[in-house]
């Protein structure tokens, strides 16, 4: 697991208060306990701070669309971190 992925996992574990969470690319909100719209906001804010990135409004909107999953989220973050 690369650094970014490890940080993302750490953020997930902290935000959802579950130290056993393992991330798979095909995961969605349905797979994680408590991943509702409020926790989604907390997740975005925590990811931005932990990784020093900023999501664009359009990217935040897209996260809620069908077909989006942990894989696409990590890919988006990795692209931002590389550019950074």
């Amino acid at each position, binding site marked *: 697991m690369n650094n970014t992925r490890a940080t993302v996992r750490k953020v997930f574990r902290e*935000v959802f208060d579950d130290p056993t969470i393992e991330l798979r690319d095909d995961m969605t909100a349905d797979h994680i306990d408590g991943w509702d719209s*409020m926790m989604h906001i907390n997740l975005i804010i925590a990811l931005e701070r932990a990784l020093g990135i900023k999501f664009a409004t359009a990217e*935040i909107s897209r996260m809620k669309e069908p077909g989006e999953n942990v894989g696409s989220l990590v890919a988006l973050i990795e692209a931002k971190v590389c550019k950074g």
Partner: protein
Amino acid sequence: MMTDDQQRNEFLETYFQADASVRQPKFVGLLQSLKSLSDVQGEDAAATWAKRAVSPVLDYSSLMKLRRFLMPKKVVGGAGNALRLAILGGPTTTQLRQFIEVFLAAEGMSAEIYEGDYGLFRQEILAPGSGLDEFQPQVIFLATGARDVSRMPSIEMGEEAVSELASAELDDWSLLWETANAKWNATVILNNFEIAPGSVMGHYRLRYPAAREHYLERLNKMMADRAAAYVVLHDLQGLAAEAGARSWFDPRFYLEFKMPCGAECLGAYAHSVFSLLRAVVGKSKKVLVLDLDNTLWGGVVADLGAGGIRLGQGSGEGEAFLAFQNYVKELQRRGVLLAVCSKNDDANAREPFEKRPDMILKLNDVSCFVANWENKADNLRSIADRLELKLDAFVFVDDNPAERAIVRQFAPEVAVPDMPEDAAGYVHALALHRYFETVAFTREDTARSRYYSENAQRKEMASRSTDLNSFLASLGMRMKVDTVNELNIERVTQLVNKSNQFNLTTRRYTLAQMREISRSPEWLTLTFSLKDNLGDNGLIGVILAHKREGSMAVDTWVMSCRVLQRGVEHFARNELVELARKRGCHSVLGTYIPTPKNGMVKDHFARLGFVQTGADGDCTLWSLQVDPLLKPLDHFIVREVTNE
């Protein structure tokens, strides 16, 4: 080998003694400790520690994580006394409400919170039978902002049209606070309007009334002028400026989630509202205790002498200490009591005050001066005793992290802000905690520290007098008795809401409720203002009573603790009995409702000759027959003016 328990406790203790900069990297460890504590000893044990970790400088995610340990129950603390707070948003208020709960819990304040739906604040207040109506709020926080302004000027409008528009806009807002007050007697905390950067008119906006920024500033000014006394204004615009416009106006979270400001500003926003709530219930801090060396001046006076310490014009460092002294002096003039707590020989500690003309703080600004070699936690306790105030009203400022750690550990009720190494940051480091917020400013506030230093003199006289009676006689006390009226109502409300110790029932009233009481013929209101040879004590006592079936029932009896043991209670009882008699009552009824703080008045009614007639749970009920043979109680106070 240390056990897990010992390791965890050691970690927690070190964490809480450390400053913010040291704590930050240990935050993950803190969460782990809290979690294991919660598993082993239960949620309450974890909550006790989590409270102490809450700070307005924490980031969004850290506050959310701490919240888990603070919010196991819906209502924090005793539900019976909980403040009924409604939060009504223009934008969504979920996270704001969550953080306000965090700060309330950390302060040990209990509240029952009603949260309106996003954008429906007008309907909640104006529509009959709304959820808010059912909730019957005591305090309403209108979490609105510039986006909730209904009328914006168009760019071609002239001064007159803009002025009319602004006036119509303000009419809408005053309808809200007037309705809230008329329906529920509620105190309304109202945001002003925050002004986003990016002016279409550029700097010309300053001279152009129809410019958005110009117009919002006008609304803010008009709101401050027109807001009724029961409206507590919250300076959202000031807060946005303080946080920095670039982080405050991060539009992404509004666009996606209708959040009121950038995520990392929400903690500061919630803390700012919390500090007003703390002021509304009279729990703002009252005393600022200051170290001397490297806190009020640069260097150690015992080594350098009064001439050698770094203070005053000519060096940046010296001016930084001057600026801090200036800030402290202004707080003192506003009614915050100052005390000194320094590790020094007394003579050395006083030398700069006596010899340096550039010292802004003078010895007579300080209500209690302690310089010795005892530990500072013990010294703070003795200062609290002398000022007759509780430690939870204290703030302790010291540049030395070791001293701060000792006070945090051994006097945990005291608020101890982290201070930076650079004196230039002192003002900000103290100000960011908003310890001394106030919702009113009365003449009594400016004179408060004088009362306390005069009281110290009185204590000295008492110790010299051989018996109490000759001491009391020597004071030459004169009492002015009055009703609650427009001239004293702000001070009365403040006293009723702030008094915790000499308070028989701890009933709190908003200014509007107090006004209603003062005008009602059913109610008897009494205020007491005391002068003596050493000075004016100001308004020091309030009794509110109402007539019930031929009896005068005491609803509220509060007195300032600084006039205890001076016969004021006897004087007040005589007045009360006399007025009850005049109104045709055959008895005076009293109730004592115990709280953790008012144990000192447990036997108040017994001491005044009342007979206990019953008990209702923890409360005790008392009665005093008003018959012609009832003798007045002895005292040494001359009645000055009669109004009734």
